[in-house]
């Protein structure tokens, strides 16, 4: 029998686990699609794409501004958190004085585990009034980008650190033997060697950024409009669901599931592109 050896039993168990997880994902996707279907039927894809605004209780279902806002916000957050997160990892591993290293690590872990509402609250009470001094009311795209980048930077740092630490010792000595300084070893050998892990960290951070809800909800102002600058208020897809789901009924509710579907597709596209970039780079 095929389950005779411990190894085949183990493999079988793992297989069941894998099937369970993927079928749960599939079920969720099917559920969301099913819930979204009435709205897709009644409103039609055209409505979601071309309606001029989002007034679901008034038969207007334009999702595009929120799609764009979600995209811009997470790209902005990644552009900020990516370099900062990698720089923090490089600093801690190779430049920080040894007495800083441990506390610094704790700080990063603490920040990584910080509940997003807490960061959102901080954003609302500290960051937003600061931004309001430049351009009131302060609840804006840039506030969202700052809060979310603060939230995802630790992810980038932690993933980058393990990728950098995974670079073989022999690469360091090989580079030193070629007369490379520490800086150029870092830039030309170690960082390129760790690029796969770093890219994975940034991808993870991007997924988190686009799915982030509570903190964004508190600081971006949530006006449904195309962002026309860092200070304009925006509403992202996740906020839209969180804001309206509790009281939504009928087509409105189904339309929120369409936002969920759009979000899922956006995340999917993002991770596909990121995976492609990472894959391409690894072959250089």
């Amino acid at each position, binding site marked *: 029998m095929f389950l005779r050896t411990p190894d085949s039993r183990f493999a079988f168990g793992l297989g069941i686990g894998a099937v369970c997880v993927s079928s749960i994902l599939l079920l969720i996707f099917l559920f969301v699609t099913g819930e979204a279907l009435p709205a897709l039927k009644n409103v039609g894809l055209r409505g979601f794409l071309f309606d001029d605004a989002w007034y679901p209780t008034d038969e207007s279902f334009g999702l595009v501004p929120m799609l764009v806002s979600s995209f811009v916000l997470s790209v902005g957050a990644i552009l900020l958190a990516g370099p900062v997160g990698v720089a923090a990892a490089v600093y801690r591993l190779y430049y920080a004085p040894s007495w800083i290293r441990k506390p610094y690590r704790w700080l990063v872990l603490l920040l990584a585990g910080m509940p997003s509402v807490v960061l959102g609250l901080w954003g609302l009470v500290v960051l937003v009034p600061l931004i309001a001094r430049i351009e009131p009311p302060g609840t804006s795209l840039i506030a969202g980008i700052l809060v979310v980048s603060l939230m995802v930077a630790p992810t980038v740092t932690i993933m980058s650190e393990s990728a950098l630490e995974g670079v073989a010792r022999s690469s360091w000595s090989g580079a030193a033997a070629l007369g490379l300084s520490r800086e150029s070893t870092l830039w030309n050998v170690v960082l390129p060697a760790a690029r796969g892990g770093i890219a994975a960290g940034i991808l993870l951070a991007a997924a988190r950024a686009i799915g982030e809800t509570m903190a964004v909800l*508190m600081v971006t*102002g*949530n006006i449904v409009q195309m962002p026309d600058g860092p200070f304009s208020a925006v509403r992202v897809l996740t906020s839209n669901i969180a804001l309206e789901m509790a009281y939504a009924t009928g087509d409105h509710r189904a339309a929120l599931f369409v936002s969920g579907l759009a979000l899922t597709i956006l995340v999917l596209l993002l991770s596909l592109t990121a995976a492609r970039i990472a894959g391409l780079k690894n072959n250089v």
Partner: protein
Amino acid sequence: MISRSLSEDENDLIGFELARDGVGLILHLQNEVPALSRRQIVDIFTGKVTDWEDVGGRPGRITVVNKAEGRSTLELFLAYFDLGVRDIAAHVVIGDNQQGIKTVAANPGAIGYVSIGTAEFESGAGTPIRLLGLEGVEATVENVKDGTYPLARPLTLVIRPAEKVRLRGFIEFARSPEMHDTILEQFFVPSHP
């Protein structure tokens, strides 16, 4: 439990009103505007007036804090001022009352509207907001209770018709005087004597 009456397309359910909750306009504590007329409120929320100076306050940009669509507070507010969802020119949209209060507390130029009970509790606890009266009536739990405050909403217990018989005892209990303390604790006003 919903904070509104049942809508017409929800005729598959039965609702029982348990209590009332007033919706009050809130400002930052530093905002010294004495009172706003109905006209002024409408002008502010529709974006015709954008500076506090124009309604008798100190100069400063007005930040309109609106509720998210579907929220009963929004529906109540719109119905009372005879506005449509598209008429509001909001700067910030918020979800629940807590978020509204925090947003206004963090912005001296903001105006929003939330449940009076929650707002009264928060301002009593030191949050820098104040409630603005409406049509000469102060926005207090007291005035919601005696029915003088005009902008109020019902809190409704909702059941499936099939469960009506089974739940009769519970509904009677929920509407009985025994529940008044619990309702008052939440700063709501019991609907039944």
